[in-house]
Each structure stands twice: as C-alpha cells, then as structure tokens.
C-alpha cells in the first residue's frame, strides 16, 4: 500500500487518530512522571493492568474492551495504593516498591492469562493481544474513548500546570505553601493510570511505559523551559504514534505497538545526538573548540614570551 491508500482507508484513519492522541497525551503526562523521577512508575502501572484485564474477563466471561479497560484501571489504582503504602509505611524505597509491585502484578497476570488460555474459551478470548497491543482490534468507539481521555489528560495538565510544576521541582516547598501534596501525588498517578489504560490496547502492557518516558526524555534535550518541554514531549509522542502506525500499515504483518515504541526511540536518539546545547554532538564540539582555543592561546603566550 502506498501512503495515499493508507490515508484513504477509513479504518487506518481511525487507528492513526487514536495512536496520535495516545502519543500526545502520554507524552504530556509522561513529562511530569519523568521530572518527578518516577520513570518506573509508568512501567509498573502498565504491567499492573494485566491481572486487571484477566480478572475482568473471568468475572464477566465476555470479551469486551470496556470491561477490560475498567479492570485495567482498577488494577492500576490498587497498584498506586500499594506503592504509596509500601513507601510511606515501610523503609522500602520507591524504586524497590515499584519493582515489587510491577513483578508481582505482572506475574499474577501471566498466571491468570495462562489459566484463561487453557480454559474452554481457549485462545478465543484474545487477551494475549494486551501484552504487546493490537491496533487492528481497535474499533471506532475505542478511538472515541482514547480521544476523550487524551483531551481530559491534556486539559488537566494545562489547568494544574503551575501546581504540577512546583510539585515536580520542590515538593517540600509546595507542602509549605499549603498545596495538598499527597492528594496531588495520587492525582498524577491516576492520570498516568488513565494514559496507560488508553494505551494498552494499542501498545500493550509491556511496552506502554516507553510512550510515557521516551518522548519526555527526548523533549528534555531541546529546551530549558518546562512548558516547552511538555509541548515538545506531546509532539514527539504524537509523531511516534503516527509514524509507527504508518510503517506497520505499509509493511505487512509488522506489529503497530512495538513500531510506535521504536519510532519513539528513533526520536530519542535523534534528540540525544543533535539537540543544541544538551545534545552529544554539541557537547563534544563545544569541548573540542574550547580545548583548541585554549591551546592556541597557550601557544600565543609561549610565542610572545620566549624562554
């Protein structure tokens, strides 16, 4: 298929729209997760969705995206709760708490998934598509939901930009001026859960974290201003969603989710290498030119004052 055919195909157009909005919103909320040093949080919440999806299927016995996503959201909330209990009431540090919750939830999810696969419903359930995502399974109502949730996420981040900024930079000071830091903490985690929920259908639980973090890391290379970083991160996410979807549609049998993630990685390498100021090439070039300038000056000094 050439590009024009792809764009003209109504089904692909919907998927494109969905992954575009998914990339945009997860890039935006991911910026705050990254700056709050909670990169692993997105990964944990995404993996935690799997048992939620399985339990939803076991309870309802039907293959319904909305039930699955409700299950995923609930599992995410339980994970959020467990993480904060572990870090608040024990001496366990956050990275360890995230590690524990991630692996135990995912392990439990895989056990349930295997159980379901071996049961009478067998492979009919199609639950395994949530591991790595399958855009082909997305229908129009899914895309509507993705767009709605994306809109809410972006709207919230705009309205609470000032609070999120202070919370990310200096939570102690935020608490000092009376911001409900604990509540905001939960609130941001819920927004991440929301991004994960709309992402797992397209990208899957295993790779969803990369859509939250990679665009944010890429965006950080280009700017020293938070609002520009958040916007750029959204744009990188959106570009990744679009390019991943386009590549997977034009090359037969390539999975969309992993391609979206790989596109995000390409943007990341591009940013890391070519960004002005913070990029690798610019850093190396700056160091070399300083060195050269210095040695030239040294030579000049030696030349004018012969021993």
């Amino acid at each position: 298929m050439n590009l024009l055919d792809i764009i003209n195909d109504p089904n692909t157009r919907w998927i494109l729209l969905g992954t575009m909005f998914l990339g945009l919103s997860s890039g935006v909320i991911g910026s705050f997760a990254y700056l709050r040093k909670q990169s692993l949080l997105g990964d944990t919440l995404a993996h935690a969705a799997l048992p939620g999806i399985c339990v939803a299927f076991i309870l309802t016995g039907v293959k319904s995206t909305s039930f699955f996503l409700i299950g995923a959201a609930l599992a995410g909330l339980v994970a959020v709760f467990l993480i904060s209990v572990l870090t608040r009431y024990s001496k366990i540090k956050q990275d360890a708490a995230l590690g524990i919750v991630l692996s135990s939830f995912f392990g439990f999810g895989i056990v349930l998934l295997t159980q379901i696969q071996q049961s009478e419903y067998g492979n009919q359930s199609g639950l395994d598509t949530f591991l790595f995502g399958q855009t082909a399974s997305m229908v129009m109502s899914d895309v509507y939901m993705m767009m709605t949730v994306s809109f809410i996420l972006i709207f919230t981040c705009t309205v609470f930009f000032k609070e999120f900024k202070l919370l990310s930079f200096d939570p102690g000071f935020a608490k000092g001026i009376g911001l409900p830091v604990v509540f905001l903490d939960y609130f941001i985690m819920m927004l991440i859960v929301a991004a994960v929920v709309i992402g797992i259908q397209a990208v899957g639980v295993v790779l969803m974290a990369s859509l939250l973090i990679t665009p944010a890391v890429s965006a950080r290379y280009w700017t020293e201003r938070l609002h520009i970083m958040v916007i750029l991160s959204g744009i990188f996410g959106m570009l990744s969603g679009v390019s991943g979807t386009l590549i997977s549609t034009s090359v037969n049998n390539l999975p969309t989710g992993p391609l979206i993630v790989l596109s995000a990685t390409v943007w990341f390498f591009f940013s890391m290498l070519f960004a002005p100021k913070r990029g690798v090439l610019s850093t190396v070039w700056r160091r070399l030119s300083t060195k050269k300038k210095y040695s030239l000056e040294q030579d000049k000094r030696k030349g004018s004052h012969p021993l």
Partner: protein
Amino acid sequence: MYQAALKVENLTIAYHKKPVVEDVSFEVPEGNLIGIIGPNGAGKSTLIKGILELIPKLSGEVTISGSSYKLMRKSIGYVPQRESVDWDFPTNALDVVMMGRYGHLGWLKRPGKAERHKAMECLDKVGMVEYANRQISQLSGGQQQRIFLARALAQEADIYFMDEPFVGVDAATEKAIIQLLMELKEKGKTVLVVHHDLSTVKEYFDWTMLLNKKVMKIGPTKEVFIPEYLQETYGGRLAILSDAQSGLLLK
C-alpha cells in the same frame, strides 16, 4: 498585649520509634534574628520541618502570631536546604522566584505581570537580576542559595524559616545573605535560621536557640551563647577546643 511571633508547645517528632525532637516548647518574640544551633543529629532541620508540618508530628501545637499554623500559611516564608531539589530542572531563576507567589495566587490562576514584577524585585534584592533568565543548573551554589532566598522574599512573609542557608556559599554571599536577613529583622520580621558555624553566632543573631533533641536554652545570644550551655548542648564535644580557641569563639 505581648504576642509571640512563634509559639511552639510540646512538639515531639519521631521518624521511627525514636523521637528526634522531644517535647519542645518555646516562644520567639517578633522582629528577631534567631540562630538555631546544635550538634549533628540534634534535630535542627527536623524541628523546622515539624513546625511547618512538612513531616508528621507525634504531638504539639504551633501558633504563629496567636493563630494556628494552617491559618497563617501565607505569612510564612521557607528556604529549604539547597540539596533538597534537583537543579537540573527545566526552568530559569525568575521562574523559581515566582513560585514564591504561588501560595498567594491560589488554584487555577497563572502567574502574570504582577508576579513577574515582584519576582524581579526580589531578584534585585539578592543581586541576581542579571541571572533572571539563566537556567538554574547554570548557577553556582551560592547563586542557587540566593534564588531560594529571593523566592522566600517573594512570599512576603512575616516569619521566615531557613534551613542552613549558609552551607556551601562563599564568604561574600554569606555576608550578602546576612545583610538581607538583618534588613528583614529591621522591618519587624522574624527570621529563624538553622546554623552551623559557631564562630559567627554572636555576630549574626540577636537570639540563639541551643538545640539537642530538646531546647537546651533559648534567649538573647549574650545570655545563651556561653561556654557552660554550649558544653551542655554539645555533650562535651567542644572540649577539644583549647581555652584560647574557645575564648576567641565566644568573645
């Protein structure tokens, strides 16, 4: 009627079982510059964080100018330890100072011209106007400390809490900061400073609090900052100083 700028009653704070600050009660009169000194682990920072409710307390009551702490938040300024934040955050000096206005702005409102103007004024007071648009990781330690101070000034508070503002700053910056704190005091503000350097206590602070889990002594520096009380507070660890040295220290 006399009213204490800050009144703390029976404050106890524990991280895990063991109390770090135990049953602390004291009053601070308005318009003073107060140094909080004591050995490592005496709970100096913990005391400040406990008063500001940044960490949970086991018991105790804090009143600011006669009202409960929660009602007085807008009249409190806070300078946290510089290492408590990641300075490689995508923002500039002016932005950080403007954060001092967030508490007055309230939810939903965005900082605008008035906040920008106020922030520039505060940057001017700490001599950092030309660095307003500098990314904060590009600032030296002393400059970062000044930015934090400017942010606290932007809070336009009546009482200030400063957690080791002199750590890692050069002598010039230290002098500039103390100059500013003295100006605040002249304006009738109350400033509490966690401080390490015993040699400058007499010069800087008109009141001193000696802290070691409990308030050992608090009062005018002349009355409190004497060898006997210091030895008591530092548990004899100051004994390593010779008489000549401590004479110099406490002159």
